C-alpha cells in the first residue's frame, strides 16, 4: 500500500513538473517573445518586420500545438510507466 501511495505521488509530481515546464514555454513564446520581449528581438528581421511580430502572429500558435502534442505523448507514456493508464 505504501508502494502504491508513493507511486501515485511520483506520478503526480512528474505530471506537475511537465505542466510547469510546458507552461513556462507557453508563457515565453506568447507573453515573452510576442509581447514583452519584442523590443529585444527587434534586431532579428523576419519578412519586413521582426521576430517578435512573427511570434505574436504565427510562432506562438505553432508552439502551442507542439506543446500539447508533446504533453499528450509524454503523459500517455507516463500513464503506462506508472501503471495508471486505462487498459
Amino acid at each position, binding site marked *: 500500500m505504501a508502494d502504491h501511495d508513493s507511486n501515485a505521488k511520483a*506520478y503526480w509530481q512528474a505530471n506537475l513538473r511537465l505542466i510547469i515546464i510546458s507552461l513556462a514555454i507557453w508563457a515565453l513564446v506568447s*507573453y515573452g517573445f510576442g509581447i514583452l520581449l519584442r523590443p529585444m528581438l527587434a534586431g532579428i528581421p523576419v519578412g519586413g*518586420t521582426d521576430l517578435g511580430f512573427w511570434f*505574436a*502572429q504565427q510562432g*506562438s500558435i*505553432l508552439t502551442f500545438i507542439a506543446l*500539447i502534442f508533446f504533453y499528450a505523448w509524454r503523459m500517455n507514456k507516463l500513464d503506462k510507466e506508472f501503471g495508471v493508464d486505462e487498459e
Partner: protein
Amino acid sequence: MSQFAINLIFVGGSFALYIAIAIWARAGSTKEFYVAGGGVNPVVNGMATAADWMSAASFISMAGLIAAGGYANSTFLMGWTGGYVLLAMLLAPYLRKFGKFTVPDFIGDRFYSTGARLVAVACLIIASVTYVIGQMTGAGVAFSRFLEVSSDMGLIIAAVIVFLYAVMGGMKGITYTQVAQYVVLIIAYTIPAVFISLQLTGNFLPPLGLFAEHTESGMPLLAKLDEVVRELGFRDYTADVDNKLNMVLFTLSLMIGTAGLPHVIIRFFTVPKVADARWSAGWALVFIALLYLTAPAVASMARLNLMNTIYPAGPTADAIQYAERPDWMKTWETTGLIKFDDKNGDGRIQVYNDTPAFAATAAERGWNGNELTVNNDILVLANPEIANLPGWVIGLIAAGGLAAALSTAAGLLLAISSAISHDLIKGSLKPDISEKGELMAARISMGVAIVVATWLGMNPPGFAAQTVALAFGIAAASIFPALMMGIFSKRVNNVGAIAGMLAGLISTCVYIFLYLGWFFIPGTATFANTPDNWLFGGTGYGISPLSFGAVGAMINFAVAFTVSALTAPPPARIQELVESVRFPRGAGQAVDH
C-alpha cells in the same frame, strides 16, 4: 446563373447535409444526448471542437480587427489559441476522468455543495446566453446579405435548422454536424485567402505570403503595408504597443476565458478515454490553427488591397474617382457597412487617419476629413469580391459564415440545456426523475433555449458587442479558477470555492459595468471608457474593462485560498475524489486498495 442562385445552392446544399446528419444521428439516451455516447474519436472530436469554438467572431470579425489594429490586435490570435494549452494540461483530461455530463456537475460534487453547483449554473447560463446572441445576429446578417431575405426571416430559418439537429440528436447530432460545418467553413475561409496571397506575393500559402515579398513593389509585404499606411497618417501596421501590461492581461483573459467556456469543455467529455482527451485538445488546435494562421495573412493583404484600390497610383497621388469605384464597393454600400461622404467635394475617395497630427499634411493635400468608413466585419465577407474571384467562392463564403455561427450556437445551446435539465432539474429540483423524463426535459429546455436565443437575436440588446467581453470575463474569473482549484488543490473547500467564484464574478462584472454602463444600460457608466480613466490609467498602464477577466481570476484564486485556509478542510471522501480524477485508471483501482 445569378449570384443569388449560386448562394442559394451553396447554403441550401450545406443545410440539407446538416439535416441528413440530424436524421442519421438521433439520440436515444441521456448519455447520447449529453456526451454523444462517449465514443467519439479524438480527431473527429478535435474537428468538432474547432467548429464549436470558432464562431462568427473568428470567421467574420477577427481578420477585420487585425487589419485595423495590426500588431496590437495579435492578442486575439494568441489569446484564442493559447487557452487550448491550458485546457489540455489543466482541465480536459481530469474532467474526462470524472466522467459526468456537465461542468456544474463537477463543481457541485467536488465542492460538495448545491450552492456551488447553482453558482456554476448561473455563471454558465450568463456566459453562454450572451455568447449565443452574437451567433444568432451573425447568422441573421449573413442571411440578409447573401440570400436577400430579411434578417428576421434568416434568423428563423437558422433557428429551425439548429432545432432539428440539436433537439433530435443532442450532442450526438451536434458533433457530426459540427464536423461537416468545420469542413465547410475552413474551405470557405482558405480558398479566397490562397488566391489573394497568390495575387499579391506569388506564394500560394497565405501564412508564408504574409512574410514574403510584395510582387508589385519588390518590398516585403509588411514593409510595403507599413509604408502605405504611414503615408496616410495611420500607425505602422507592425508598430509596437506602449501599454504592454494591458496587452498581456487582455491576452491572458482571452486564454483563461477560452479554457473556462463550458461549451468547449463539454466537448472533451465525448471521447472514450483520458488519453484521448489530451490528444483531442491538440487536434482541436491544429484545426483551429488552419484558420488562425490564415487570418493574419488575410488581414494584412486585405488592408493593402483596399488601400491600393483607393489609391491606385500610391498613397501620395490622387485617390480613385467615386464614379469609378469597383462593383463590390457599390454592393456593400447598399448594406450600409461602407459609407462615403465627399467632404472636400472633389469627387474622389480620400481615406486617411483624421487626427490633429496629420491635419497639416491633409490640408496641404486639399483633404477635408476622412471620406470612407468601412465596417471591419465586411473584410472577410467581401474578400472574394475585392480579389475578383468567381461567384461560387462568394456562395462558399456565405455557407461558411453560416456554418461558423450555427455550429457555435448549437454547442452553446447544448451547454445551456444540459445545465437546466441535468443540473437544475435532476441535480436539485427533482432528483428522482427517470432517464426518459430527463431526456424529455433536456429536449424541452433545448427548444426553449433556441426560442429565447432567436428572440434575443431579433431584438438584440444594444450592447451585443460588449456582452462578449462579459462572457469571456465570467468564464475567466469564475469557472476556470473553480475547476482548476478543484483538481489541483485538495485543500480548497466548499465555502472557499463559492466565495472565490462570487468574488471573481462580482469584481469582473462591476469593473466592466463601471466603464460600459451598469447592466450595459446606455448612459449609466460611472466613468468614461478612456485609457486615462482605467485602473492605473495615470501611469500609462491602465487596465481596460475587456482585460479585467484575468484580474478577476486572480481575485478568485486569492479569496478561495484565504477562505479555505481559515475554514475546515474538505472531508476525506472529497480528497479521494480529487485523487481519483488525477489518475486515468478507474477510480476503484486508484484509491481502493
